[in-house]
């Protein structure tokens, strides 16, 4: 029986706690009697037979939706869209959930004699996946059956011939979707829900739309009014996505398949990352020492290569299929079952140790913008109710924050960092002054469509993602980060955590209360 997450009140006997620091770790001692550590729940038991569960979900759909075989018939146009490289994190061991589900869907399509089947990676404005990445996500059988015949596509949000404008929502949001999707008789969307933000109408409203549509929910206003991104009813980003998704569903029949994972994020060789410090065995302690000291000896590129090669032993904990909203409700319940941790009250300071990987740097570099996005965007938003830190409190991030960018994956990030941030760090100002130019820049558009680059506007979105935290908190300090890079973003650098806590006292007063959110493994704090 996996143990639930819990909050440890730090006293003088509490050992130093593990803190992620990019491609490495730190052991940090927290001030006694006024600090607490939020520990994630242990991984749930996986489904005993995931393939049988998938088949059952396809045959017994949720909501107002017939079983999948009844929606399949010869002569139809079937499109299967699936989540891209940004999920799950770290990438999971094969077989990936997408492979399992799509193989089951294709089995039924083959039985029904469906010839016109196209697979689309729902990239949204993310970079295209390489063949190796597609093969890893889908498996050899699917890749070899579809890719050579041009039936395995990647969504192109800038293809003038590949998009269709379906109309506007009641709030005036454009719905411009992938043409193949719009002209299909059935869209099967295959989802991996790592966190509560994923899935539902957001999958289609982000992954298969153009910039004209995405800009309606990926903007500063939506993100400042999403309290939090993990709490759909209180998220403006999701409200907009829902309106867009509902309009799409009026034009195209959508059969949604959502899967959830347990938070078994690291292989047994790195078991210490999943354990509480006082439960570390001799082996765990030896592994920690070897990993942290060994990583320090490697060059940044070698260190990155080692960490990016980690495959998570994630296992499927649930699968549900059918009508989008009914499916998503069941999915959210299953995510909460794995990730929810009750926390009483807010603190003056919250600390996040940031790992080496986020949604946008799989097989890539965690550049300073991504550090900002992961810390103030994702980790800060991992709450229900209210943030872990009080209004005007301080966020402390631990990450090396190197001044390094992947020139192929993140070209617009480089210009954003060099051109925009020295001018202003205010998201509203940035949106007003720079967004359109970055979004419509021909060179970025060309790289997005033909190379492996994120869309030009994606660098903006990385900054918007932290808009809620920037507005809500009194400051951000990054421990152990590149000082120039940290200052460029308007944050304060600190050499040690103790220094950072001292500096934070200038903002929140003496003897502040501290919450350390010990993730990953991922969790969702329900703050009362």
């Amino acid at each position, binding site marked *: 029986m996996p*143990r639930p997450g*819990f909050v*440890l*009140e730090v*006293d*003088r*006997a*509490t*050992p*130093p706690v593990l803190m992620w620091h990019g491609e490495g770790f730190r*052991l940090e001692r927290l001030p006694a009697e006024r600090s607490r550590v939020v520990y994630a729940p242990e991984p749930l038991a996986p489904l005993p037979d995931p393939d049988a569960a998938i088949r059952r979900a396809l045959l017994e759909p949720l909501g107002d939706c017939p079983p999948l075989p009844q929606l399949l018939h010869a002569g139809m146009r079937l499109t299967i869209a699936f989540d891209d490289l940004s999920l799950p994190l770290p990438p999971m061991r094969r077989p990936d959930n997408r492979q399992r589900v799509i193989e089951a869907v294709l089995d039924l399509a083959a039985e029904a004699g469906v010839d016109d089947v196209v697979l689309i990676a729902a990239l949204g404005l993310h970079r295209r996946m390489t063949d190796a990445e597609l093969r890893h996500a889908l498996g050899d059988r699917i890749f070899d059956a579809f890719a050579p015949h041009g039936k395995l596509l990647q969504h192109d949000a800038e293809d003038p011939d590949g998009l269709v404008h379906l109309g506007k929502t009641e709030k005036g949001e454009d719905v411009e979707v992938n043409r193949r999707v719009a002209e299909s008789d059935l869209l099967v969307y295959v989802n991996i829900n790592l966190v509560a933000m994923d899935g539902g109408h957001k999958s289609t409203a982000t992954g298969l739309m153009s910039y004209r549509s995405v800009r309606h929910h990926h903007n500063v206003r939506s993100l400042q009014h999403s309290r939090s991104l993990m709490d759909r009813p209180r998220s403006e980003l999701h409200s907009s996505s829902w309106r867009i998704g509902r309009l799409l569903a009026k034009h195209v029949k959508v059969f949604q398949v959502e899967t959830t994972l347990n938070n078994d994020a690291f292989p047994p060789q790195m078991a210490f990352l999943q354990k*509480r*410090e*006082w439960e*570390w065995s*001799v082996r765990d*302690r030896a592994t*920690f*020492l070897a990993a942290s000291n060994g990583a320090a000896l490697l060059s940044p590129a070698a260190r990155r290569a080692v960490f990016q090669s980690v495959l998570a032993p994630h296992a499927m904990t649930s699968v549900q299929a059918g009508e989008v909203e009914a499916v998503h409700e069941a999915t959210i319940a299953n995510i909460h079952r794995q990730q929810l941790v009750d926390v009483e009250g807010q603190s003056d300071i919250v600390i996040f140790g940031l790992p080496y990987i986020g949604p946008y740097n799989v097989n890539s570099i965690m550049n300073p913008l991504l550090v900002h996005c992961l810390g103030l965007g994702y980790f800060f938003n991992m709450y229900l109710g209210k943030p872990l830190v009080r209004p005007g409190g301080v966020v402390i991030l631990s990450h090396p924050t190197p001044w390094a960018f992947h020139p192929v994956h993140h070209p617009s990030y480089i210009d954003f960092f060099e051109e925009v941030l020295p001018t202003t760090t205010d998201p509203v100002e940035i949106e007003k002054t720079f967004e359109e130019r970055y979004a419509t820049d021909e060179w970025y558009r060309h790289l997005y469509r033909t190379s492996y680059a994120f869309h030009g506007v994606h660098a903006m979105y990385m900054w918007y993602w932290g808009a809620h935290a920037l507005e809500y908190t009194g400051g951000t300090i990054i421990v152990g980060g590149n000082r120039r890079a940290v200052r460029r973003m308007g944050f304060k650098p600190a050499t040690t955590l103790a220094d950072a806590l001292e500096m934070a006292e200038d903002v929140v007063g003496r003897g502040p209360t501290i919450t350390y959110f010990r993730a990953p493994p991922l969790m969702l704090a329900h703050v009362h």
Partner: protein
Amino acid sequence: MSISDRVGPLGLGPARGSRERGSSGQGAEGPALDLALGRLREALLPSTGKLRPPWPFPLGAAPWPPSVPRPPKRPDLGVNYATDWARRYPVRLARAAWTELVTRPLMAAIAQPSTEGLDRFESTEAPVIFAANHSSHLDTPLLLSVLPERFRHKVVTLGAADYFFDSRAKAIYFAFSVNAVPIERVKVSRSSADRAQALIEEGWNLLIFPEGGRSPDGWGQPHRGGAAWLAARSGRPIVPVHIQGTGRLLPRGAKRLYVGRTKVTFGWPLYPDLPARQLVGRLEDAIAALADEAATDWWSARRRAAQGATPPLTGPDASAWRRAWALGPSPKDRARRRSPASAKRWPAGYGS
């Protein structure tokens, strides 16, 4: 709870925190000494009040936070420890080599055993249940080292689950070296009994100490019913065994091992033709008679047994010191007598 609260009841005086809050007017060396003591206390005493491991985390284990409940004991240890691996053929071969090359020479050197009564069960068919008195950790290896060869490598020792199987290292060592299987010492649970009977049915001889643990004072303890109950259930005979002398070489709680002589006396097999409850008493009488035989001679012991005058294994019914006195001098005392302190000095007149 602060550190000072925790260390107070342990009699180590106030910790640094309480000194800083409350004390004043001490001499110049007082605060410095208190500070040093306070730091020492904090280094040594975590919240549990137990000594902290010598290496700081992560070189050593981190202390368990007092507010976090410990999970239930690992279910694969204790009485649930699976010892099947120790009865696989390669392990049996390795154990036979261990017994012949390590255990027997070691026991011959340390305990110098003499045996009596091996002829009494030479025609008895295996499997049997060996039931012996128990006063030392030497009992099991000693007994295994003197058993006839046809039994020696086919014996399972029933060991207390809470003692021999409470850690993985101990469990592996005892399962390998003496083919131990865990058993609950306070009661014979159904699972333990089923396991023991299954082993007998597979042809394994059992070695069991019916007293349930080593003697706390050198004298025997009342028998528990496990051996008799297993014999009654399986229909196999019990061979009573008395081991003399090991309690002197390595008694309970001893910090060092002494070298000396021991004697192992085997009795006639007892067949379970009585109810288990009566068999317990018969077994106890048989081992007491063997103890008498080891102390005197067979004929005297038989006569006393016939008259019902065999000295009880549990020793005289007297005060604690008289019971201790009746055991005779300890090996330590004897060693001192053999080598008086003066003998260790330089020879008289040396260098004069």
